[in-house]
């Protein structure tokens, strides 16, 4: 097992289990995938209008990352809001999802900016720009992170992507509000 500490925030304990051939970080199994995989899953969610695939993908992300961040905060006794925000940002980057800056966060609202984005830049690399947002994963991540940061239940927050790298903007912006 190797342990890595990124700046003053996130601690990642990586492990490979030779018996099962599984890779884990902090006890959670992780897998490598590429932007083709991520953007094709995103496209599938986008196309699947009959059951609102975009919402489904965002909710899966919200559930997954809320759990993981909540567990991390508890295990490492991360109780301060600034420290929790930093961990969420660094965790997002460690997954290769991009450079996230939570510009402001309160129990009711927040603003989040993406300076780099795996999903948006992967989409542009694969298919080019488009006007509508595609980063449902990050919308869900932000909702889950806010729930974990403020000790609220999942589905507490609604997240709207109001500016998108995939549409040609320099950065993406997400606005958060308690529902």
């Amino acid at each position: 097992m190797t342990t890595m500490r990124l700046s003053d925030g996130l601690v990642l304990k990586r492990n490979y289990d030779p018996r099962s051939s599984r890779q884990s970080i902090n006890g959670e199994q992780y897998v490598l995938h590429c932007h083709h995989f991520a953007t094709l899953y995103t496209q599938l969610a986008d196309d699947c209008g009959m059951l609102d695939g975009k919402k489904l993908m965002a909710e899966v992300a919200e559930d997954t990352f809320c759990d993981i961040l909540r567990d991390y905060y508890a295990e490492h006794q991360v109780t301060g809001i600034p420290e929790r925000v930093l961990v969420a940002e660094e965790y997002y980057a460690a997954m290769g999802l991009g450079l996230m800056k939570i510009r402001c966060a309160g129990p009711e609202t927040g603003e989040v900016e993406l300076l780099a984005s795996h999903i948006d830049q992967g989409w542009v690399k694969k298919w080019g720009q488009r006007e509508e947002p595609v980063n449902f994963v990050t919308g869900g991540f932000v909702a889950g992170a806010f729930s974990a940061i403020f000790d609220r239940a999942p589905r507490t927050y609604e997240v709207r992507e109001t500016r998108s790298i995939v549409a040609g903007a320099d950065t993406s912006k997400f606005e958060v509000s308690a529902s």
Partner: protein
Amino acid sequence: MAVNRAVETAPYVSALYTTVDRKKIIDALSKLEVINNDEGLIPAFNVFVNQMPARFWTSFSERLTRKVGPDLVEAAEWLLVNAAQECGYHTGHGIITSDEWNAIVAPMVTRVPEDVLHGAFAVFTAWGWAKSEVVELIPNERMVVHAYDYYEADVVRYGERSRPAAFMVRGVCAAFMDLAYGGPYDPTGQTGLRTFKCVQTKGIECGDEYGEFVVTRA
């Protein structure tokens, strides 16, 4: 695990013998750390890589395939497999032309593309996608892969699923045959991709001891 478990008299047995040392590859590559750059991105193998919790992918595929209804479940499954096949094709090509591959796997390769296939499944194992190996190979025609552990099986913790659910393994198995026998690599994916297809005939999630994946010409 041995790669030569096929019946000795089978015509495809020779393609299973390989100079690729699976254990050595797995030992070396399983310790490779994937670390993001200053932009929170992981550019590698000519793609952007992500390292996400496995349950994110399986939760999405499970909820999606359960909710679309019986008329659309096969179409949804095909799209999930297709995502993996494109991923496996492009990232697979990036891997087998990478510095890591050239340093560790390429010196073991004496027969192309069969040894490349064996090496690719060792990498597939080392990086935690599926503990898998080629158990039958008819060059340019058919491949059977067994997976003894894979994260997609985790969707069932009790009982047996009526339909197999290893969409990622299916897609990647087909992609590796695309790379091996589908002609020159095509970055656009218009020619070399989807020359093979894969059917999952057994699954741990269905109560079998291992997953079985049969790849044939599309």
